[in-house]
């Protein structure tokens, strides 16, 4: 399912217009992205939670050439499945 299909499904289930559904989906994901960019946790009960993990810089190697590469510090979102989602996916 992609974003357009999600918008369609939301429109059909809630009886709102397509443009309203598109706006809601945009607000939902933009808000989560903004929170993560501000290093804030996201907790959507039953679905999932996210937090930002910080990785220090390290010297890596290009596995093809064996060359040393300096990897800069980075931040990545860490996903955790919610309890309800976990159970439903696995049943």
């Amino acid at each position, binding site marked *: 399912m*992609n974003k357009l299909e999600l918008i369609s499904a*939301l429109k059909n289930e809630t009886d709102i217009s397509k443009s309203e559904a598109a*706006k809601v989906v945009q*607000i939902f994901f933009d808000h989560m992205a903004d929170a*993560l*960019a501000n290093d804030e946790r996201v907790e959507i009960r039953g679905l999932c939670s996210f937090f930002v993990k910080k990785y220090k810089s390290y010297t890596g190697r290009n596995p093809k050439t064996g060359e040393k590469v300096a990897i800069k510090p980075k931040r990545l*979102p860490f996903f955790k*499945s919610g309890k309800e989602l976990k159970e*439903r996916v696995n049943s």
Partner: protein
Amino acid sequence: MALTKHEIAEQVFNELGFSKKRSIEIIESLIEQIKKSLESGEDVLISGFGKFRVKEKKERKGRNPATGEDAILPARRIVTFNCSGKLRKKINGS
């Protein structure tokens, strides 16, 4: 202090003018659509955000970390998330 669905519903209320109760219903429905898709084994791909994928895990031997006892972890399905390049850039502030 974490972002929750209530804050997201608040934003829907502010921007789209649905009542607060209706805004929450709409957000709940959106979350339900995502869960339904994953439950049916179908990935959810959100461009600009990331991919929620359903993965099949095979049965494997594990250990109970508390007791040290051997245990068999049964085959199961889990959800994983792959961050999109756009979100990754946003989080790293570039």
